């Protein structure tokens, strides 16, 4: 994966950290719902923050299949790549 992806992953982990308890370690394989206990409302609000940061729009349809931190980072990466 490119630096762009790594940058996205790093920013995403930063945002997720704000929503999680301090002792949780976030890695690409971390499950958003089961491990971070991010409910649907929190996830949607998080996505809005990310949309602003990367100047993209993430559709709800695309979010339906997202389980892990890596999958979300990859989705953002793909949308950003398409917009270039």
């Amino acid at each position, binding site marked *: 994966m490119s630096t762009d992806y790594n940058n996205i992953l790093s920013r995403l982990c930063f945002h997720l950290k704000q929503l999680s308890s301090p002792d949780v370690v976030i890695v690409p394989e971390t499950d958003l719902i089961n491990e971070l206990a991010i409910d649907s*409302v929190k996830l949607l*609000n998080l996505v809005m923050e990310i949309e602003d940061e990367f100047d*993209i729009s993430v559709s*709800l349809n695309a979010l339906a299949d997202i389980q892990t931190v890596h999958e979300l980072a990859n989705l953002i990466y793909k949308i950003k790549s398409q917009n270039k």
Partner: protein
Amino acid sequence: MSLLDKLDAVAAARKALLPEGLEVFGTPIEEVYSATEARIGDRRILFLGTNNYLGLTFAPECLRAAHEAIDREGTGTTGSRMANGSYSSHRALEREFAEFYHCQSGIVFTTGYQANLAMISGLAGAGDVVLIDGDSHASVYDGCRLSGAEIIRFRHNDVSDMEKRLKRLGERSKSTLIVAEGIYSMLGDQAPLAEIVRVKNAYNSILLLDEAHSLGVLGKTGQGLAEETGLTDGVDFITGTFSKSLGSIGGYCVSNHPQLDQLRYISRPYIFTASPSPSTIASTRAALKLLRDGTELRRQLWQNSRQLYARLDGLGYQLGPQPGPVIANILDSPQQALLLWKGLLDHGIYVNLILPPAAPEGKALVRCSVSAAHTSEQIDHVGDVFAELRKSIFQ
């Protein structure tokens, strides 16, 4: 996890949140005495969570019309209009809605939920975009899903956020349906319609406005926010429901776009469901007349709404951003909200409890809906009970 295990998990989550024996959702109501009073268990209670904004559920004109329709046309249509035919009363109500809004045509649906489902899934499809307010009603979200279109949310009532998303879409903004609501059902605030119309025109999009909670409440003749703001011509499609100010059940859409009628042939929530029963149509027609001529009802409704909003605001409750018939008390935790809801019920006042994720921003709501049928004394009493409960809720 098996299919049934999933339901067991739902039951466990409910049990963890709600005390044993307390039926918070779907509270059994044993008898209904009037638009504002009923019996729950052995207690006479005041309705303050019915959306019965104009208090028309017992209007003699509506009762009489419903009785006569049952005698004349029977209890039900027993099928869809596409397959079983279209009764004259259904067609008449559609004309009356179109005339009421000074629009070219109207369609009646079996519920308000289905009106949004039918319109959104009929207008947008794969390859299109639906741009919705984050606080949209579930019927809007579900209509979007049914459509197969790309669904993008904007921050609640934030038109600059909406515009940012339209801009990102480029040429696709022309195949974008924007959905907003006249009054939002949870917080009771109104959409910034003038700004929304300006932006949708600039990007050549289509706007659908759901007037479910604003019909009968806003505008000189009660059409809703579009009439209140003088922007009816700027809205492409207006949907709404019969189940609030009109006191029955059903939904509608009106528009000046001649294409509206084509929805009857492609929209599954319209095609594949039974049409409203004749008594429902008849009481709705009677209620629509009362609503249109209901200047005094609206004056009373707003007087009651302002009275309660001011009292609760003065007591220090955190409320939705603007006064109106939907008054949401915003609480930090489900436990606090549950305590307030139970306290009100113990004092004979029935309101709505809204817990996450249904409540915006992860909060919990104790939602009141005011009616024109409430008396000033009843509103005073509600205020007194809120005052009494405040100490125990926030101690």
